[in-house]
């Protein structure tokens, strides 16, 4: 039997040579396939520019973790020998590989350690740092309590940690700052990541159920994890006003709240800023010290020229990029449109935070993003109209996004009228002067639905005079006018399509 198994292994290795590398890798990554043919796992890792066998690397690390004075030797794919040792740098244990003058530093992979206490302590710390879901943490803790991880498990644990908003944000920031990112670095294909970003969608939930139950559970978990960080992550979900209304600030002391608003004023993405303004207006009577920051954020939104190279352009391009890429990879296929849009807008906001901090050329980035995924975004949004008919593709344009945010500020301010006392703030929101956002109020675009409202009844009545004019024309039964309107709509759609997919 052993001879037969050996012969089968040889045949399998021979057959594998007649397929492309990606097929070979996929087959070898399958434990059942390897077991059937009696093959040893072979996964090549690139440490910088140095390719090594993953299994050999992990074996060397296991040896060093078992005996800290050990210095095992690892051969790279070119045959060069590297000395592996554990070193302490800034109070952190790391793995160092040395070959001549070359040095490589790696994490120490504590989950491979034979020391149970070491494995558990380090895992708990990392799971807390990235806010790994409790159920997932429990499952890994059980394994790590009983033994060190096998190679495949080590890899799976790393993927688990990587697919969290904290680590994805780190990866995006690195890609943006080094200029070495691709679209797949910016937008993960993982459904699990998006669930951790905006909360899990349970089958059959309506948008109202989800906004009231699913989002609430998610936000409660975030703030119970870490008050400040949880608050900042919650704000990414502010693409609908009913979400910001459930983000509480009671757990933040005054210093933390001021720190959050100061950061949002200087480096915040537009979605988090609108959430912060809505929350801020509702607590202004209890937390008056945030007023200068609120005023400043509202003015920034007011003054952001949607036709210039500003943040609304960036926000619009990022939503197009994320939605277009998700349409391509179908990573969230089967999810309702509103949930996918909540996830993609939250992720676009996360990327926006990373870009604002960087020195990236925003004009060039937005142009390339629209060109790369504009057509896919447009087609996906047209397809979505079957389920959510009120949000059209052109509503992603910067001018409409700005109108949406201005509308939300005014609406929240009206609901919290009695909490707004200072003349400056009242004039800024309710005034009629050139500095007031009230001057935008006659614009019909303020009444259009937001991205999560495509399947809902209209929340706002359009301005009375516009409504009257529409009703008059409809009751006049002037058929030719209808054809003119349809012709105009067609031209408008063509123009918008060009705008979405071309230069801003």
């Amino acid at each position: 039997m052993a001879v037969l198994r050996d012969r089968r292994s040889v045949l399998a290795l021979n057959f594998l040579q007649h397929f492309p590398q990606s097929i070979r890798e996929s087959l070898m990554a399958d434990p059942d396939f390897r077991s059937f043919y009696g093959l040893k796992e072979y996964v090549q890792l690139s440490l910088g520019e140095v390719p090594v066998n993953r299994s050999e690397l992990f074996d060397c690390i296991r040896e060093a973790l078992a005996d800290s004075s050990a210095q095992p030797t690892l051969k790279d794919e070119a045959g060069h020998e590297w000395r592996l040792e554990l070193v302490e740098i800034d109070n952190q244990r790391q793995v160092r590989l040395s070959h001549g003058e070359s040095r490589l530093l790696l994490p120490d992979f504590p989950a491979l350690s034979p020391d149970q206490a070491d494995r558990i302590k380090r895992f708990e710390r990392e799971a807390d740092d990235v806010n790994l879901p409790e159920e997932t943490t429990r499952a890994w803790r059980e394994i790590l309590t009983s033994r060190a991880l096998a190679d495949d498990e080590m890899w799976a644990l790393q993927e688990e940690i990587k697919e969290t908003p904290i680590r994805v944000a780190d990866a995006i920031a690195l890609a943006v700052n080094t200029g070495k990112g691709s679209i797949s670095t910016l937008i993960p294909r993982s459904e699990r990541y998006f669930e951790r970003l905006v909360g899990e969608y349970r089958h059959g939930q309506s948008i109202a159920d989800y906004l009231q139950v699913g989002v609430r559970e998610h936000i409660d978990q975030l703030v119970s994890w870490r008050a400040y960080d949880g608050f900042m992550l919650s704000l990414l979900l502010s693409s609908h006003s009913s979400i910001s209304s459930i983000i509480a600030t009671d757990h933040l002391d005054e210093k933390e709240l001021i720190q959050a608003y100061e950061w949002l004023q200087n480096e915040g993405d537009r979605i988090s800023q609108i959430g912060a303004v809505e929350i801020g207006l509702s607590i202004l009577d209890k937390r008056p010290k945030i007023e200068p920051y609120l005023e400043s954020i509202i003015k920034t939104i007011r003054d952001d020229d949607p036709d210039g190279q500003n943040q609304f352009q960036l926000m619009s391009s990022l939503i197009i990029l994320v939605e277009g890429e998700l349409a391509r990879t179908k990573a969230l296929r089967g999810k309702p449109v509103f949930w996918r849009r909540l996830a993609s807008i939250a992720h676009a906001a996360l990327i926006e935070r990373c870009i604002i901090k960087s020195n990236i050329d925003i004009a060039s980035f937005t142009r390339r993003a629209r060109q790369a995924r504009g057509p896919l975004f447009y087609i996906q949004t047209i397809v979505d109209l079957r389920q959510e008919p009120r949000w059209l593709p052109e509503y992603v344009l910067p001018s409409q996004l700005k109108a949406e945010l201005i509308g939300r500020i005014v609406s929240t301010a009206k609901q919290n009228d009695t909490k707004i006392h200072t003349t400056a703030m009242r004039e800024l929101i309710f005034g009629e002067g050139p500095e007031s956002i009230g001057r935008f109020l006659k614009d019909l675009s303020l009444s259009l639905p937001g991205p999560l409202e495509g399947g809902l009844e209209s929340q706002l009545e359009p301005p009375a005079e516009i409504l009257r004019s529409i009703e008059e024309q409809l009751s006049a039964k002037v058929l030719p006018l209808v054809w003119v309107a349809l012709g105009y709509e067609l031209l408008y759609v063509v123009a918008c399509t060009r705008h979405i997919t071309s230069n801003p």
Partner: protein
Amino acid sequence: MTLAFQLKTHVRLLILAPENIGPDAEEKYFQWVDEHVLSRIRDENPELYSWIIERIKEIMTQLAEMTLLEELE
């Protein structure tokens, strides 16, 4: 014949290099297939990619069993 069936047939043909083209040309052909065909299928149509992998497993099993039987005879 459905479009999906035609697509699967085309892909199945593409992942095998033409016969007798030599190892260098075969390597270049595989690089092209990886870059222009398989990476996109894996990203955009994971079900089709899994289907390809499963078919290859089946073919390999059949070939291995046939070869072993011939050798035993």
